[in-house]
């Protein structure tokens, strides 16, 4: 029975085990601190803090899961939702790798390529953060140097400029309508900014799928 498990099924099985284990360990962290230092949570304040924070992040979390899982593939999803930084790092990394290899995300090759790209990216990120933590004293003045600040403040535009050219030029018929819509919305709706771009991703994805369907049905694509 075990040997008949396909690759993709075994990814799902292993992913479930890893993610649930990491989740339990994450919950254990504050509980262990509370136990070791004899400090029970302030329950009333905890409830208020959670009410202020959790509902919005839960809603965003559900939408992000539905939006990003089909793009990340199975292995990529289990990893990305543990290690985070999906739209600014893991997903661009996977998209670039698929593009570089000329494989479709929905094929088994695509699944493997995106898993390899996301796993590599996660490993490198984790190691760089470890180096940063170990060398925080000498690194802080360098990384917080005012001269470098604009470079890191503009990371997303620099990332999506390159990725946009690579991807939009190859799929320009699909891209025209969503790019125009998003430009108009972001320029003229003041509420749309860096903190609300996450909410616009699923809106834009749905819109693009809708437009593509119409174009496909009319034989334009």
């Amino acid at each position, binding site marked *: 029975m075990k040997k008949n498990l396909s690759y993709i099924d075994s990814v799902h099985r292993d992913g479930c085990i890893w993610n649930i284990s990491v989740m339990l360990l994450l919950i254990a962290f504050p509980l262990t601190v509370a136990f070791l230092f004899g400090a029970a949570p302030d329950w009333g304040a905890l409830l208020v803090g959670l009410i202020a924070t959790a509902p919005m992040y839960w809603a965003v979390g559900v939408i992000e899961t539905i939006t990003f899982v089909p793009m990340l593939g199975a292995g990529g999803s*289990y990893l990305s939702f543990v290690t985070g930084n999906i739209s600014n790092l893991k997903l661009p990394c996977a998209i670039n790798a698929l593009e570089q290899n000329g494989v479709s995300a929905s094929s088994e090759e695509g699944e493997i390529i995106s898993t390899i790209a996301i796993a590599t990216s996660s490993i490198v990120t*984790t190691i760089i*953060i470890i180096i940063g933590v170990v060398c925080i004293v000498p690194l802080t003045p360098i990384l917080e140097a005012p001269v470098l600040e604009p470079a*890191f403040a503009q990371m997303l535009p620099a990332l999506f400029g390159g990725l946009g050219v690579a991807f939009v030029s190859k799929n320009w018929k699909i891209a025209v309508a969503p790019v125009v819509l998003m430009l108009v919305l972001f320029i003229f709706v003041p509420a749309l900014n860096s903190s609300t771009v996450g909410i616009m991703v699923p809106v834009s994805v749905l819109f693009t799928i809708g437009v593509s369907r119409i174009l496909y049905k009319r034989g334009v694509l």
Partner: protein
Amino acid sequence: MEFHVNHPILFAMTGFLVAVVLAQSVYFLVKALRRSKEIGMDQTKIKKTIQTAAVFTIAPAVSIVISVIALSKSLGLPLPWLRLSVVGSLSYEAIAAENAVSAMGLSLGKISSLTAQQFVNITLVMTISILVGIWLVPVIGKKLLSGMSNLGAKDAKWADIFQNAMFIGMISAFLGYVFCDISRLWAPVEGYSATSGLIPVCTMAVSALVMVVLGLLMRKPRLKWLGDYALPISLVLGMAAAIPITAWLA
């Protein structure tokens, strides 16, 4: 035991959790590499994929280190290290921490040193609020993805377009975001110059231009290797260009 935000025990616990997450990444990498050999994928291409992903990740990862440093000033080092290695992001953690302490009648910037109880409350609020993706992927991931492969079985061409449409949709949202402050040109915002909204636009333009130039260069056989590093090169040059652009337009 006397609590402080940089207690060695907190470092040890965080180190353990980070090691587990690292192990998960290595596990999935090895699993995918094995499968790639089994189905006879070109291993030189796989190697290149790993190199590109690693090089591309450096700049964004350094920016995560900067977030760890920023948060460590109020929360100590272990907690931001944990939160930004597992799921989190700077803006999310800052908001969650602020909500947690303000519920206790305090303000994060004004606390000189956190008590164990404040630390536990902050960590619980952060953890419980962010957990959704971690458990929801095991619950619905398989269904979502088998829906995708059913789509592929029914109409392979549409499935491909569908996949590209999702990528384009995401990229379009971020392209729109790059222009979000351009309205400062005609609707001034206090504290910002009118042209400051052009900074991200110009940065993006530089990065896009670099990508176009690389695309032309890599047509020459001798420079074909550039294709593997096109995205990291355009990212880093775009970020570097942001320094003079900001000085000029801010």
